[in-house]
């Protein structure tokens, strides 16, 4: 008999596969059009689902996995945050770094998504030529109050454009982790950093259920 977990894993894999198929279909899409489409998609999904707005973390994570993660080069994101130490990590350590970093970011992103009410996303004019292999797409999240700056760095890949850094309110996320990652690594090595992230994810998960 199929356990619930197996079914959930299967569904998640299916969602990912569908998402990836979607990516391949839109490989020719311009980076700003892609960002616009993905963000509108996500916002619409959140607005349509009351359980997400009440903070159903599992559901939000599934949504992010399905809609956003196929468009993210998470390996590059992690490698860039870890910086020069990345090359010293074993493949196994690299995988664990990626997994834990992903959990950390997706959880936080999910927390932000749970706040969505009447927001829309607007693109700002993009610089750079059509043949650039890396671009910055700049957007603004508009709702009540001041607009929130939300920018993306994207790279061209055979499977379409992939996000490798995000800027919230002027702060590039990967850059913001670089110093604290270096700090943990110099204190306890790469395993020390992994342990630290595991610990943070555990306490965030515990805190998330109580709120």
């Amino acid at each position, binding site marked *: 008999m199929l356990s619930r977990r197996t079914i959930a894993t299967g569904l998640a894999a299916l969602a990912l596969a569908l998402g990836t198929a979607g990516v391949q279909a839109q490989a020719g899409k311009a980076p700003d059009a892609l960002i616009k489409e993905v963000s509108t998609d996500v916002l619409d999904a959140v607005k349509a689902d009351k359980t997400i707005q009440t903070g159903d973390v599992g559901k939000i994570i599934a949504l992010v996995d399905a809609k956003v993660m196929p468009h993210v080069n998470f*390996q590059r994101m992690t490698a860039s945050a870890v*910086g020069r130490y990345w090359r010293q990590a074993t*493949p196994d350590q690299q995988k664990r770094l990626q997994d834990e970093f992903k959990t950390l970011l997706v959880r936080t992103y999910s927390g932000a998504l749970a706040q969505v009410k009447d927001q829309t996303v607007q693109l700002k004019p993009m610089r750079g030529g059509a043949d650039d292999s890396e671009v910055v797409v700049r957007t603004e999240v508009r709702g009540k109050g001041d607009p929130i*700056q939300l920018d993306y760095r994207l790279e061209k890949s055979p499977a379409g454009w992939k996000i490798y850094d995000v800027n919230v309110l*002027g702060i*590039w996320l*990967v*850059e913001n982790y670089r110093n604290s990652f270096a700090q943990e690594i110099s204190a306890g090595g790469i395993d020390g950093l992994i342990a630290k992230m595991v610990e*943070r994810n555990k306490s965030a998960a515990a*805190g998330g259920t109580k709120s």
Partner: protein
Amino acid sequence: MTLRRLSSVALLGAAALLAGCATTGAPGAGVRADPWEGWNRKVYAFNEGLDEAVVKPVATAYRDAVPQLVRTGVTNVFAHLGDVWSAINNMLQGKPGDGLRDVMRFGTNTIFGVAGLFDMATEAGLERQGEDFGQTLGVWGVGAGPYIVWPLLGPSSLRESVALPLELQVSPTLYTDDRGAQVGISVLQVVNTRANLLGATRMLDDIALDKYSFVRDGYLQRRRSLVYDGDPPEVPDDKDDAAEAPSGSASAPSK
């Protein structure tokens, strides 16, 4: 939401003021930008303790007791004067068009927004710009200098600290000579600002491995971004160094 406003008030930590520095990026940049880290960490811990014990509980009670509409009104009134300050700073930065937009904002909100209680200007497409004197110094070419954490006031830098005495003057306390009223206004401003940041600081608890360095690096990045009005030039650094290595290249020589 109110982050820009904050920058003209220079209050609590989480994501307020910030100083653009030409040195960010490479591992170790934090060390260069923060030579007084030992002392700063002590002050940061003190501020956190005070926040946990007093400011945050009061702000939470305020948020729960006062309706959103009223809190938004309070936020708007405090920001209203900030628009005048922003206009002056836009002029000082050589951006008369932006300065004029701030003046129009102030006029619109004074007349149609009941003395700044409602932010009608934003509805009309005149958005808050929140320029402050720290940004003006940055535009004039003054570097951020070392990172500093002030007791009560939180993250700053040498440049922002020079601007701080001026920034603190920009408050509705200017409207009255009554000492008691001034204290009341200042307390309300701190509590209201903190209440606006409750969500952001809760998120910070979840996302940061080390809150001190996360806040510091975020502050420095944001201030730099603000100096360039949200579009700073790229800092050349080695950030993609690692990413350009072939995937899973654990065997690659590490220099």
